[in-house]
């Protein structure tokens, strides 16, 4: 590898299962040492993309390189340079913590002199010190996930693919897991991590939003909020949220309206006056709190981007 080639580069990556297009012409560049969050609803194509990049699924079209190696032509070299955590827990429940680590250490041919130290590191990282001889099936979810991460990084791979590593794990364990991800990134490991927790996306350097097999936006959380929303976001409360939502969908200057919990988030076209919105609601016999500008969350961005209406050109 000369210069600084991207850790992951995909061009037109496509996967079809029969007539169903799971991933459609996806382009992706991830620089060395980046933590990129892969966000999207279930079935959006996150797992399929990650599996293609790991060489587990053969792309129907397009190309990709991982750590500089072609995923179709040199899959074994790719596999030696990646760590992978699948969505479903996939270590051996009938082996102990140490036996699982030793097994993957053997598969990755971690030098014997180094293996002991690497295993100790993984055990410490997973918080399993003293439980090396426990059968893995007896561990709670959070420990299992951290052990899976430990197995995936035994051979110090430069690129890590983590497919929903925190799904089904309690919040405290999720936070600890993200701390681990950041300490790995600090050591120069490139990480592509998928999640459907929007709050986790904020921990990433960049976010790739994917829906129905399409990459619909990529950028830092800040960039996405500023650039991709394409307008000002206001929030209001109404005792009749359903009626209010219906009315707002036809209101002048309203690009998009959606219910968020007990509130309504309304995206206004640039230059629309928020006060006019309040008057519009009152004119329709609806009561509502005065609209107040809010900082959009990634969820707002996501809802906006996957909605039908095209965004007005901004920036």
């Amino acid at each position, binding site marked *: 590898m000369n210069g600084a080639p991207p850790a992951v580069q995909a061009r037109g990556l496509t996967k079809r299962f029969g007539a169903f297009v799971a991933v459609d012409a996806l382009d992706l560049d991830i620089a060395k040492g980046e933590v990129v969050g892969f966000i999207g609803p279930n079935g959006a194509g996150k797992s399929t993309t990650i599996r293609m990049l790991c*060489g587990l*699924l053969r792309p129907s079209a397009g190309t990709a390189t991982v750590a500089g190696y072609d995923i179709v032509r040199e899959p074994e070299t790719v596999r030696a340079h990646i760590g992978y955590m699948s969505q479903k827990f996939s270590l051996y429940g*009938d*082996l102990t913590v140490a036996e699982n680590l030793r097994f993957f250490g053997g*598969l990755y041919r971690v030098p014997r002199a180094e293996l002991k130290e690497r295993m100790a590191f993984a055990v410490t990282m997973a918080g399993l010190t003293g439980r090396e001889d426990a059968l893995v099936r007896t561990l709670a979810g959070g420990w299992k996930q951290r052990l*899976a991460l430990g197995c995936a990084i035994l051979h110090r791979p430069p690129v890590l693919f983590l497919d929903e590593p925190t799904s089904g794990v309690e919040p405290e364990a999720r936070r600890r897991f993200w701390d681990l991800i950041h300490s790995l990134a600090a050591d120069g490991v490139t990480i592509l991590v998928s999640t459907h927790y929007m709050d986790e996306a904020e921990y990433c350097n960049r976010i790739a939003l994917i829906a129905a097999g399409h990459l619909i936006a990529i950028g830092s959380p800040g960039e996405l909020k500023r650039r991709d929303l394409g307008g000002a976001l206001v929030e209001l409360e109404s005792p009749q949220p359903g009626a209010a939502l219906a009315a707002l969908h036809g209101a002048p200057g309203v690009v998009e309206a959606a219910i968020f919990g007990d509130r309504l988030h309304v995206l206004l076209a640039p230059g629309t006056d928020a006060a006019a919105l309040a008057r519009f609601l009152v004119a329709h016999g609806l009561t509502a709190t005065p609209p107040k500008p809010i900082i959009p969350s990634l969820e707002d961005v996501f809802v906006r981007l996957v909605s039908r209406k095209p965004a007005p050109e901004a920036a």
Partner: protein
Amino acid sequence: MNLRRLLAIAYKETLQIWRDPRSLAIALLMPLMQMGLLGYGVSLDIKRVPLCVYDQENSQLSRGVVNRFTSSDWFRQVAVLQTDRDLRAAMDHGDCIAALVIPVNFSRTLYMTGQDSLQVVLDATDTNTANIATGYAQGIVAQLDADLNANWQGAHGETVRGVGTVDLASRVWFNEGLDSRNFIVPGVVAIILALVGSQLTSLTVSREWERGTMEQLISTPVTGLELMFGKLTPYFVIGLLDAVFCLGTAAFWFHVPFRGSLFTLVLTTALFALVVLGIGYLLSVRIHSQLGASQIALMLTMLPTTMLSGYTFPLDQMPQAVQAISWLVPARYYVTILRSVFLKGSSLWDMAVPVIALLIYAAVIIRAAARAFRKSLD
């Protein structure tokens, strides 16, 4: 192929077998049960056929005839009958399978006319047993006939001339006692090995798919060959240990004569083990469910091996088409080899055809298994 990865897989697999009650039961209990069941249960010899005696004459000669029957190994007297009604009742109740009927004037007719008949009544609901019992009875009567002739000629001062009496002196080789156990037990070893070998490996890859561990496994640089040989190694060792147990039981417990070389036996057993392990592995790779793979392995090994290997049912008695199919059954070759090694002491050279057939089989199966594995979720 990298030895370190192969060994890592073999070690992991060994731990899993050790902790899996189902695999352990198949590996350890199945040979024991089958050997006891088939070794003791299956016998084609019919000895000590229950016999009712209906001696209507009760003369010195007739008692002599009865004695010839009951003192042989082939018949044992269970009842003495007095009337024709008794005879009918005894047969109806299944008290005996054969009844010897000696007519009232047996000895007088014989001495006066020089000939008379004895009657043997048989319960032929089991035709096989009835046929065999008939054979035994004919043998005893033929001997009786010969002895009577000799006595008569001696009594009348005639010397026995060469003309007119040709004696068949048959000599049985290899299984001198015509003991069917010597014929069956080596075949039982083939059945057990086929069953255990294919059952164990049928679970090994399908288990990884079923539990989801395969996804992690194929994301590593492990190759299909490393996975196959790594997984087969512990099962190969188990298969050989099971074979040693079964063969040892055959030789030392059932006293099947062993006349061949141990080397030949081990080599051919290893070949057969590779074939059956390969079949199970191939199924396991192809069918991603443990239940499905083990069921199909059972069907593919149990039925053809018991019916078409010639282990009890003689192949040359079967229709041509069935005989043709039997050439596809690997156990057929191994059963032939086992019998030859045990009873005849044949060398590898003597058994070139079945040995080469097994060799080809092993090569084809292992190659197919290696090619069937795809490192992909597609």
